[in-house]
Structures are given as structure tokens and as C-alpha cells.
């Protein structure tokens, strides 16, 4: 048995969880059995490990995890871990048994047990973690699994709310803990528990001690439901009672105090520690016990009582003397025992009577005597009645509080006694349900529960008594081993006896008992304790509400931030981008570049005039684009031709050709699209003459940015142009284009050879865009106003009104133009071939040729209409694209077969009889691919657009000629 690895303690519960989760929803016994078996197995292993821990020994298993960060997965068991393991597994086993009878038939228990065991496994992970990061991992897992457990009855709003609250608080705490642990790791240089525990002095001396302490404390206090984070715990009572019995007695909330005990050697013993931990503990202990008195729900009472008892443990740890640590560990144990049994008792009452409301419940002793006896004993232990375990640790607590303030400061002792009084009072209130006449109007007829449902309670109560009567024999060794594993050499001498003689602690205990009973009596008789719905004085302290408001405020705040610093509109985004373009270089670049002096004599007047035109057109387009689209389009075209002329002037004929072609095709494209835009009326027509101030502001702002951007780019280009160029790779291309690229047009050789890879991407862009356009337009739906036949065509003035497009070309006004334009088709085809063939040596190439070809075709569409052209010519643009891409790709891949990289150009030299030597460069094939793609893409785009008119004509014909009042033609 001893040879079994420790890691099984962690793995077994998880394995059980998985098995349980896989069982069907309807099964009831099998999940419970599985859970029980796995837990029992783990428990037996855990118990068997006790012998190895005898004299402050530590059992350690190391598994490789993240060696890069010096992180091993360490399963580490010492006395403290053993004690907690037993609690987690032992009480877990009892709860599993109990839950088998508690959960109703409708509940899908497989899921319940799966959550339960997953939680158990996480708890075991926390307890057995040998390094702090691993601890945090399991810590967060307990938050997660407890969230699932609390929210198990997901239909209930309370359950959802409670689960969320618990999860948020404990996860937040967990993240604090993570940060704190990181700092500890930073200070110590290791995350391993042993190293951290050994480096206590180093930690406490470090400048980061306080942040680390606060962060770790936040983690522990949230988990243990300490003030001001206590509020989640009562809301977690929406969970099924077995969950409460488990989470809030032995496990979840104990994880917090476990952590404090665990890290006490590393962090404890400073005034900061005392103030922080002790302070929180004292407040919690008083508040919890006070609130508990005034609860009407039995579980609520237990919840606040739990808060208070955890406060007690926290205070003990805050005091931080070795003896108080021992007391804390002892109380952890005792509290787990009596609180678990109490929760289960409440569950039984709830289960058998259908209610937990103490205002309703009465005289249950008559209906369920055994349960009543058990519950009374357990609550007596909770109240600190002698001969029960609760008394022992509470007395140690009183002794410590008396000790801590010395002879002057009694505040702590007063607080302790007050807590004792309150706990007696609420314990009395708790047991009051068993006395008096049996209530009549209960939802169910109460009776004793089934045998095995009560069994866990009986076990625990027996333990209460056993520990209470003979503490040294029952838990002496355990406590000693656990305490010594924390305290090490500082282990104090103590005596676990029922009787220590008449001393101060005993006096405090007695006073608490008497005064507590008195307080209960007074409250009951004088203050209608049973009828109270809220806690006196302190009812304003609503943690849960504060939590909800905080969450709401966070949400609202976030929304506010997003509204303030974000936008969903396009204009502000472009505004940001454009202003960043100006501002960011101004901020980042230092020193700034200098501008060479302007020499006006260097200005070439003709070129200046050329750009006077270009700039005027650009500005004009900017001015006109809103209300006069066609004018703006023409002016953009003006800038375009000036650009083209600039290119040809400045030695870039290829660019000029391309620019011209693109200009033409773009114009056609936009004209095809313009028809679908709504008419926009000038403000004069709408009689809106004055723009509001906001408009003026916007315009000034935008023009400022426009001017800034323009100046910036002008300055940058001037600065570059006036500098001598750096040694550039450009020269290489000039030297090699002919000799090695096989073409005298360097730009073209660049495109198809040196940088053919770019061109391949470029044609892919074209293809992708064409496909997108096609896909989009297939499902295009015009706005209702634009379905109507254009004003121009509906007008009676024009005799063409009722002519079909083909008829217009046959004998309508297009008859004569058609003659010209049809003659042009073969001519343009030859021109396309010309520009294609010469591209490698002179300006031209596949792109320009493709556009010329496409233009020639689109002109035919303009002449005779879509229907006519397509009935006379089957152009399959998709195939053009596909073949083009293949052609380009395979030309590139062809080089592989010759042992060269993709796209390496080869030239076939053919010696033909009449024609002489012919050079057939592979680049030619590549360019052919470009040509095909360009034709295919352009045609696909243009034709897809053109088809929309056709469709809308059909629509308009169907829709009995929608006639929208002709507002105004677009100028």
C-alpha cells in the first residue's frame, strides 16, 4: 500500500469524475457507487501515508511539467496536507453517501457526482501541491468546479446568481493569488513550496513583501469568505445541501485558511500580517456570528456561522504565535466535523419537512428524535459546550486572544467573548426547531430519514464527542504532525486536555455560554427574533448588493469607455488612421528631416501647368463628389490623364500605358455602378442653405487633416527628390535585364522574371476580387427606388424610349456608332496582340494587352446590350481566370523539372527555316497567364455589373413599371 504513488490521490477523484460523467443521466446508484469507490480508494491510500509522515517528514513526488520555467509537478504531502486530505476525502465520502439519498429522482446525479469528484480532485490538488503555481492551478479549478456545483440547480435564479458571485469573487482572488505567488517566485527564485517556506526571512525583508502579502491574502480571504468578501457564501447556499455540507465545512472555504497556514512560515510573523489577516478575521468573526443570529433559513444561519468560524481561524492565524497556529489547525478540523454534520442535518430536515424556515419549524424532536439528538450535539459543539470538540479549540482561541494583547489590551478578548456569545445565541436558535409543539402546516409530514442518510451525521457526531472527550487520544498525533509540519522547530508545547483548571479561557467560555443564552432569551422575548426579516443595525451592510452594483457599474463603465474611446462608424476610424499618419511620425521621429531650399528657377513651367491642371481636377473632384458624381468622376479622370502624362514625361512609358487602361476601365466600371446610387440633391434644391456649426467644425477639422497629410507627403517627397539616391538594387536589373532576363524592357523583365512572384500574387488579387464581385452581384438586390427604369429611358422626349437595346444598334440612334465600334473590335484585338508581344522588349505586356482586349469586348456590350452580345458570343471568364492562373503557375513550376527554383526563366531558341532564329522565353508564357487572368477578371467584373441592369429591367417589367417621380438627373 505504501508503494502507491501520491499522485493517485489527485488522479483518483478526477478519474471518478470522468467515469461518473460518462454514465447516463437516468442512472442513480452507479454514479454514487463509482464516486464512493474512488473516494474510498483515495482515502485508504491517504490514511496509509500517515506512517511515513511521522517525524516532520515530507513525502514528495516530482513529475516533469514545464522544466523551461523550472517547474515540476510536485505532489507533496506533509502533516498539514495529510490532515486536509483526510478531511477532503473523508467528509467527501460521507457527503457522497448522504447525497445518494438526498438528491431527488429527477436530479441527474451522474453530473452531480462528476462535479463533486472533480471538485474533490481539485481540492486534493491544492492540498498536495508542492509548488505554488501548481497550487494556483488547482485553486482556480476549485473555483470553477464549485461554480458548477453551486449552479447545479441551474433553473433557479438564486443558484445562477450564487454560482456567479462565488465564482467571480474566488476567481478574482485566485488571480490575485497568482500574482502574489509570482512575486514570491520572483523574490525567492523558485516556485517550489519547500524553497519558499525556507526563504521566509528573505521574503519578509524584501521590498516586495507587502504587495506579495496583500495579493496572497486577497486570494485566501476571498476563498475563505472573509470580510469584505464574505457575501458570496450565504448566496452559495442555493446549492444542494450536500454541496454546502462539503464546500462550506471541510473544503472550499478551508482552502483559504489552508493557504494561510501553508504560507505562514514564509509570510507570517510581521505586523503587516497581523493587521491584515487578524483585522479581517476579527471583523468577519463578529459580523458572521452576529448575522447568523438573525437568519431565518437554517442554511443561512449555518452559512454565517461558517463565516464567523473561518474568521476565528483567520484571527488565530493573524495572531501568528505558534500556539495560535496549532489552535487554528485544531479548529479547522473541529469545525469541519461539526459543520458538516449540521449541514447534513439541515438537509435531512429540509428533505423530510420540505422547508428550512426556522419561523415555521417546531418540535421536530417529536418527529425525528435521533436526528434531533445528533443536531443538538453538533450545534452544542458549534456553541463551544464542554466535552465536545468545538469547546476545545474555542478555548484555545480564547486563551490566545487573551494572550495576544498582554495585560493592557483586552480588545481582542472582548471580541472573542462577543463572538462566543453570539455563537451560543445562534446555536440556540438553531436547535429551537427541535423544541416546542410539532408544527402542523409543514409542506411534508416529517419523519426520520432513511438509515443511510443519517449515517454520515452519526459518524461525525460521534467524532465530535470522541474528540471532545479524549482529544489527545483521538487527534493528538494528527494535530502534532500537522502542526509540526507548519511550525517545524517552533513547535510549542501544548496540552490537549479537557480540563486545564480554572483559567481565563474557561472563564471566557463560561461567560460566553451564560451571556449567549441570555442574549438569545432577550432577543426571543423582547425583540421578536422569530419575526425579524433583517439584521438589526448592520442590515445596511449588503455585500451582495455591493457586488451586484459593482458588476453593473463595471458593465456601464466599460460601455462608457467603449463609447468614449471606440466607434462603430467608418468616418472616425479613417479620421484616426489619417491623423495617425501625420501625428505618429511627428511624435516618434526625432530628429526630423530637413527640407532643402526651394529654387523657383528649377521649375519647369510646362510641367507646372500640367500639374496645375491635375491638382485643380483633384481639388475639383473633392469639391464635387457629393452632389455631382459625374463631374467628380470626370475630374478624377482629368487627374488620371495628367498622371499618365507625367509617367510618360518622366520616362515610365509602361506606367503610362497601364494608367491609361486602368483609367478607362475604372471609368466604365464606376459608370456601371453609378446607376445604383441614390440621387443626391444639392442643398440649394432642398432649400437648406446654412450648414450647422457642427458641420463647420467637422469640415474644418477634416480639411486640417487633409492639408496636414498633403503637406507631409509633399515634404517627404521633396526631401527625397532633392537627395542623391542611395546605392540601389535597381541598377542590377538594368544590367541584367537583357543579358540574363532576355528582355530589353527592364520593367517588364522585373514583372515577369526578377519579381515574377509579385506578379503572381497580383493576378491572384485580380482573380479573388473578380470572384468576390461575381459572388456578390449574383445575390445583389437593388434598393426599391433604383429598380425603376432610369429617368432618361422613361422619358417620352427621347424616341428611343421603347426600343430594345439590340434594336437601338440595329436601326436606332446607335446604328452608326455600332458600325464604327464593331469595326474597331478586330483592330483592338490586333492592338492587344501587339502590346502583348512586344511587352518583353518595349512598353506593354500582358496586363495592358488584357485590358485592351477586355475594353474592346465591353464596348460591344455598350453597343448592343448584354443579351445580344451573349447570344452571339460565349465568353467564359471563369475559365479564362483559371487557365491564366494555371498558365502562370505551371510556367513557374516548369523550372522545377529543369532543377531550378520556381519561376526561373528559360529561353527556347528555335531556328526556323524562313523565320530565322526565334526566342521563346518562358516569361512569355507567364505573361500569357497574366493576360488571360486580366481578361477573365475584368470581363467577369464588368459583365456581372452589366447584368444587373438586365435583371432590374426584368424586375421593373414585372412590377408593373414602378415609376418613381423623376427627381433630377445626376449631373
Amino acid at each position, binding site marked *: 500500500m505504501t508503494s502507491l504513488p501520491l499522485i493517485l490521490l489527485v488522479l483518483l477523484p478526477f478519474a471518478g469524475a470522468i467515469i461518473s460523467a460518462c454514465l447516463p443521466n437516468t442512472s442513480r446508484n452507479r454514479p454514487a457507487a463509482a464516486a464512493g469507490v474512488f473516494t474510498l480508494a483515495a482515502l485508504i491510500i491517504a490514511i496509509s501515508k500517515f506512517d511515513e509522515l511521522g517525524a516532520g517528514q515530507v513525502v514528495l513526488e516530482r513529475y516533469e511539467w514545464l522544466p523551461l520555467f523550472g517547474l515540476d509537478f510536485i505532489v507533496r504531502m506533509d502533516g498539514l496536507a495529510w490532515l486536509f486530505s483526510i478531511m477532503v476525502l473523508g467528509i467527501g465520502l460521507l457527503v457522497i453517501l448522504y447525497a445518494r439519498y438526498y438528491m431527488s429522482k429527477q436530479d441527474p446525479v451522474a453530473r452531480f457526482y462528476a462535479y463533486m469528484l472533480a471538485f474533490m480532485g481539485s481540492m486534493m490538488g491544492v492540498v498536495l501541491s508542492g509548488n505554488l503555481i501548481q497550487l494556483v492551478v488547482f485553486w482556480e479549478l476549485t473555483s470553477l468546479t464549485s461554480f458548477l456545483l453551486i449552479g447545479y440547480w441551474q433553473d433557479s435564479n438564486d443558484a445562477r446568481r450564487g454560482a456567479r458571485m462565488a465564482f467571480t469573487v474566488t476567481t478574482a482572488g485566485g488571480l490575485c493569488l497568482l500574482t502574489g505567488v509570482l512575486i514570491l517566485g520572483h523574490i525567492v527564485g523558485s516556485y517550489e513550496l519547500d524553497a519558499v517556506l525556507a526563504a521566509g526571512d528573505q521574503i519578509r525583508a524584501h521590498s516586495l513583501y507587502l504587495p506579495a502579502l496583500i495579493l496572497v491574502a486577497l486570494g485566501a480571504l476571498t476563498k475563505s469568505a472573509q470580510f469584505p468578501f464574505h457575501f458570496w457564501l450565504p448566496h452559495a447556499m442555493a446549492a444542494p445541501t450536500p454541496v454546502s455540507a462539503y464546500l462550506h465545512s471541510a473544503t472550499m472555504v478551508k482552502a483559504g485558511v489552508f493557504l494561510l497556514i501553508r504560507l505562514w512560515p514564509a509570510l507570517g510573523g510581521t505586523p503587516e500580517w497581523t493587521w491584515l489577516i487578524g483585522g479581517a478575521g476579527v471583523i468577519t468573526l463578529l459580523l458572521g456570528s452576529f448575522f447568523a443570529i438573525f437568519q431565518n433559513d437554517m442554511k443561512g444561519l449555518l452559512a454565517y456561522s461558517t463565516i464567523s468560524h473561518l474568521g476565528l481561524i483567520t484571527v488565530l492565524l493573524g495572531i501568528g504565535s505558534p500556539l495560535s497556529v496549532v489552535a487554528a489547525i485544531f479548529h479547522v478540523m473541529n469545525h469541519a466535523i461539526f459543520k458538516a454534520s449540521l449541514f447534513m442535518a439541515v438537509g435531512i430536515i429540509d428533505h423530510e419537512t420540505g422547508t428550512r424556515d426556522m419561523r415555521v419549524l417546531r418540535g421536530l424532536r417529536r418527529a425525528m428524535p435521533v436526528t434531533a439528538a445528533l443536531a443538538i450535539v453538533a450545534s452544542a459543539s458549534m456553541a463551544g459546550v464542554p466535552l465536545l470538540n468545538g469547546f476545545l479549540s474555542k478555548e484555545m482561541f480564547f486563551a490566545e486572544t487573551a494572550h495576544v494583547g498582554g495585560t493592557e489590551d483586552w480588545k481582542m478578548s472582548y471580541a472573542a467573548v462577543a463572538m462566543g456569545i453570539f455563537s451560543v445565541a445562534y446555536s440556540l436558535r438553531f436547535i429551537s426547531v427541535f423544541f416546542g409543539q410539532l408544527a402542523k402546516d409543514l409542506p411534508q409530514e416529517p419523519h426520520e430519514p432513511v438509515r443511510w442518510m443519517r449515517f454520515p451525521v452519526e459518524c461525525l457526531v460521534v467524532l465530535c464527542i470522541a474528540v471532545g472527550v479524549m482529544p489527545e487520544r483521538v487527534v493528538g498525533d494528527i494535530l502534532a504532525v500537522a502542526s509540526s509540519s507548519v511550525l517545524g522547530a517552533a513547535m510549542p508545547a501544548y496540552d490537549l486536555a479537557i480540563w486545564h483548571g480554572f483559567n481565563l479561557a474557561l472563564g471566557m467560555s463560561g461567560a460566553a455560554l451564560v451571556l449567549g443564552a441570555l442574549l438569545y432569551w432577550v432577543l426571543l422575548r423582547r425583540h421578536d427574533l422569530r419575526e425579524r426579516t433583517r439584521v438589526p443595525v448592520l442590515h445596511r451592510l449588503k455585500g451582495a448588493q455591493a457586488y451586484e452594483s459593482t458588476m453593473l457599474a463595471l458593465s456601464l463603465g466599460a460601455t462608457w469607455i467603449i463609447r468614449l474611446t471606440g466607434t462603430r462608424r467608418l468616418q472616425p476610424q479613417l479620421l484616426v488612421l489619417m491623423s495617425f499618419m501625420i501625428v505618429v511620425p511627428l511624435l516618434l521621429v526625432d530628429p526630423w528631416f530637413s527640407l532643402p531650399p526651394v529654387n523657383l528657377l528649377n521649375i519647369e513651367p510646362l510641367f507646372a501647368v500640367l500639374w496645375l491642371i491635375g491638382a485643380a481636377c483633384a481639388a475639383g473632384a473633392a469639391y464635387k463628389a457629393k452632389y455631382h458624381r459625374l463631374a467628380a468622376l470626370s475630374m478624377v479622370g482629368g487627374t488620371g490623364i495628367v498622371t499618365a502624362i507625367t509617367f510618360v514625361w518622366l520616362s515610365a512609358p509602361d506606367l503610362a500605358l497601364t494608367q491609361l487602361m486602368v483609367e478607362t476601365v475604372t471609368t466604365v466600371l464606376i459608370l456601371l455602378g453609378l446607376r445604383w446610387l441614390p440621387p443626391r440633391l444639392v442643398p440649394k434644391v432642398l432649400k437648406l442653405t446654412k450648414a450647422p456649426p457642427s458641420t463647420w467644425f467637422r469640415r474644418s477639422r477634416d480639411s486640417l487633416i487633409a492639408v496636414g497629410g498633403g503637406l507631409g507627403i509633399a515634404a517627404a517627397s521633396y526631401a527625397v527628390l532633392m537627395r542623391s539616391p542611395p546605392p540601389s538594387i535597381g541598377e542590377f536589373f538594368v544590367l541584367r535585364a537583357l543579358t540574363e532576363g532576355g528582355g530589353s524592357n527592364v520593367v517588364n523583365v522585373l514583372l515577369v522574371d526578377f519579381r515574377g512572384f509579385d506578379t503572381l500574387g497580383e493576378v491572384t488579387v485580380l482573380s479573388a476580387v473578380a470572384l468576390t464581385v461575381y459572388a456578390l452581384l449574383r445575390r445583389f438586390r437593388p434598393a426599391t427606388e433604383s429598380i425603376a427604369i432610369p429617368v432618361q429611358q422613361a422619358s417620352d422626349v427621347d*424616341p428611343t424610349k421603347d426600343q430594345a437595346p439590340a434594336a437601338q444598334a440595329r*436601326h*436606332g*440612334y446607335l*446604328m*452608326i456608332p*455600332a*458600325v*464604327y465600334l*464593331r*469595326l474597331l*473590335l*478586330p*483592330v483592338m*484585338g*490586333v*492592338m492587344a*496582340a*501587339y502590346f502583348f*508581344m*512586344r511587352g518583353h522588349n518595349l512598353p506593354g505586356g500582358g496586363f495592358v494587352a488584357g485590358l485592351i482586349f477586355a475594353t474592346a469586348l465591353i464596348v*460591344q456590350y455598350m453597343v*448592343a446590350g448584354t443579351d445580344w*452580345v451573349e447570344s*452571339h*458570343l460565349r465568353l467564359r471568364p471563369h475559365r479564362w481566370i483559371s487557365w491564366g492562373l494555371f498558365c502562370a503557375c505551371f510556367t513557374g513550376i516548369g523550372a522545377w523539372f529543369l532543377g531550378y527554383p520556381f519561376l526561373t526563366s528559360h529561353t527556347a531558341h528555335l531556328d526556323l527555316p*524562313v*523565320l*530565322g532564329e*526565334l526566342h521563346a522565353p518562358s516569361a512569355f508564357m507567364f505573361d500569357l497567364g497574366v493576360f488571360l487572368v486580366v481578361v477573365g477578371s475584368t470581363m467577369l467584373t464588368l459583365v456581372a455589373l452589366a447584368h444587373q441592369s438586365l435583371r432590374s429591367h426584368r424586375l421593373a417589367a414585372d412590377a408593373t413599371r414602378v415609376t418613381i417621380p423623376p427627381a433630377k438627373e445626376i449631373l
Partner: protein
Amino acid sequence: MKRWLPHPVVSLLLCGLWLLLNQTFYPGHVLLGALLGIAAPILTRHLNPLGYPRMRAPVVALRLLGFASVEVVRSCFNVSRVILFADYANLKSEFIRVPLTMRDEYGLAALSCLINMTPGTVWTEIQPDTHELVLHVFDLHDAAWWVDTIQTRYEQPLIEIFEKKGPHGDPA
């Protein structure tokens, strides 16, 4: 022959265009030009339902071209003079109607080319119901003169060239 070279003149012209473009008589280019010249009309024949014109009466055509050239130059200087010196307020720019008898599309196209290339006149349209040409004249002095000139000097020769003997080309 007819099947592979349906439009020899057009093919020849296109081949000529090719050689002119490449400014060479290199045999490879001649071959390529010939190929293009033959292929282009065949490939585009479906989109050209009228086919290609058969021009007759080359002498008439040359005479017409000569007359038109003189007219173009003359009109050009007239228009320039008007633009530079005339009093725009008294400029009489008007549309006139010219009844036409010619129906052949190529003939009409040639007419439109002549008219539009002559500064001072712009072809607007042929009114479908009356088959009258609507013309805009920049500086109109005598509408009748224009009607007469166009009908006799332009239309008649064009009818001779394009319309005299039966149909032309092969409609698709």
C-alpha cells in the same frame, strides 16, 4: 478559300496594321500579321452582323476624299476665324434637317465620318421616323446650301461606293 479567308481585304488591312505597328517586314512578323489578320475577323464575326463592306468605284471614292479634304481645311480655318474674331452674340448656330435616301449603314457611317471630321458640322442623329439627318451647324448662313451640298457632294458618291450593286459582305 472563302472559309479560311472570308474577308481578304480586311485581313490584308489588319496585317498591314500589324506590320505598321512593328515597323518591319521581318518574315516572322509577316506571318504573325497574316495569322492575326485572318483570325481576327473570323473570331469576331459573330459580333459583326453587318459583315464588312465591299467598296466599289474607287475613283469616286478618291474624288470624294479630295473634296472632303479641301472642305475640312477650309472649314477648319473658318471655324478658327470665328472662334478668334467673331462676335459670338450674332453667331447663328442651328440644327438643320437633311433628308437622306441612302440606307446602307456603312455609307451612312462614312457620311457621318465626313461630316464630323469637317469642322463646323456635327452629326446629331438620323430621325427614325423620317430618315432625316439632323445636323448641327456652327455658323449657319444658308441651310439650303448645306442640304444640297450634303445630298449631292457627299451622299451621292457614297451611294455609288456602297450601295450600287446589291448587298455586301456576309451577314452573320
